[in-house]
């Protein structure tokens, strides 16, 4: 069984202003390029990070991002965790629906970000905050899950 071993090098970036969003995009692009992601995958990952970081800023009232390079056997990937301690999301299913928005946007941020990456995990408790974790793999294949097959 292959083990997902997160490298020790987790980077934490603050998300508190528009300037931080630009910094997040830059760092994610740089890290993805270093890990060997292709141009299209880099762009997808950066775009997803941009959407989620903006959610963290606008809806969560700010928070931070953790960038973790991943390794499973020969395959390399990148995990991004967006954390905030904002009001949380009451109806996750509704929030994930295309076109649903509370912020006057297009309502594609969450659902769109999910389509741009290999793994998407969402955890939100009303009043306690929201954690969104996404991961993408250089080969484009999701990591084999423990116990699968």
């Amino acid at each position: 069984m292959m083990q997902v071993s997160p490298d020790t090098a987790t980077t934490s970036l603050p998300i508190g202003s528009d300037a931080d969003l630009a910094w997040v995009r830059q760092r994610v692009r740089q890290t993805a390029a270093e890990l060997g992601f292709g141009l299209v995958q880099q762009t997808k990952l950066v775009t997803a990070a941009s959407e989620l970081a903006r959610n963290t800023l606008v809806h969560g009232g700010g928070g931070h991002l953790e960038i973790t390079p991943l390794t499973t056997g020969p395959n390399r990937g990148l995990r991004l965790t967006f954390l905030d301690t904002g009001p949380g999301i009451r109806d996750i299913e509704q929030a994930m629906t295309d076109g649903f928005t509370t912020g006057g946007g297009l309502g594609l941020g969450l659902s769109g970000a999910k389509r741009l990456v290999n793994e998407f995990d969402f955890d939100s408790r009303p009043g306690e905050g929201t954690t969104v974790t996404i991961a993408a793999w250089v080969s484009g294949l999701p990591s084999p899950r423990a116990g699968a097959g």
Partner: protein
Amino acid sequence: MEQDAAADSAAARLVGSFLERRREQIAQRWADEPLFRTVFTVSRDEAVEASKAVVDALSAVAVTGRLEDIEAPGFRAVRDQLGRMVASRARSGFTSAQIADEVAGLRGSVTELMRGEFPDPAAPDAKDCVLSLALLMGTLRLVVMETALSAGEELIARQRQQLLEVATPVIKLWEGVVAVPLIGTLDSARSQVVMESLLNAVVSEQARYAILDITGVPTVDTLVAQHLMKTVAAARLMGAECIVSGIRPAIAQTIVHLGIDLGTVLTHAGLADALAYALERQGIEVSPRATAGAGRL
């Protein structure tokens, strides 16, 4: 407590009169300190004059008794001068901390002079005065730091403003065709400027076609797409047809996955394609000459 306060203000007044009386000697010594010597390089007199201005300011502050108040009116006269000094040191590659250390370095010589004023430097009033002087010099250090910080903030604000204006030129490509090459991050403030300058150009150039080129935009997320669509819609209201060009392959795939519907927006891969389209729609044909040298007949 009241006695302490009275002693403090008496000490402050003593410091004030001391600074006034020994102005010349202090200025002469400070002129040799790195802070003044390296900034005023033209002549030593210049450094002495600058030092005198600072001594005068400190004296004025001490007389009012507001030793720890960085907003004390006495400092106002030297703020500009301090700002120029800080800027000059910063240009030579000094960090704020190093500049602060240099300001702290001024304390030694003036304290020495102050001690010389008293027959017995260990007497309580001598100690009070030296303490008051130390407080005052600490405040000067804070004033210098504050000047350095606000200069930095001003610079950043000015550069941000410049970036907004510089980065969004509207170019007239042809009679009735204008284009905006967008570069960098398209946030709400930038997109507002873009929309305004584009709509103004549509009016002033009587443009029927407006091209938004996003070759230089690294990331197109839902917010950027929304800004683009709003700009296109606004241009359309003004009677101009808006074309978005410069959509790179990676961006195109990302937009599709995000689920953004750009069906209402006319798009072309490159700026040249967009221009060709605009010309064709206006009935303008651009073709090479039939044969080279044909015009010579």
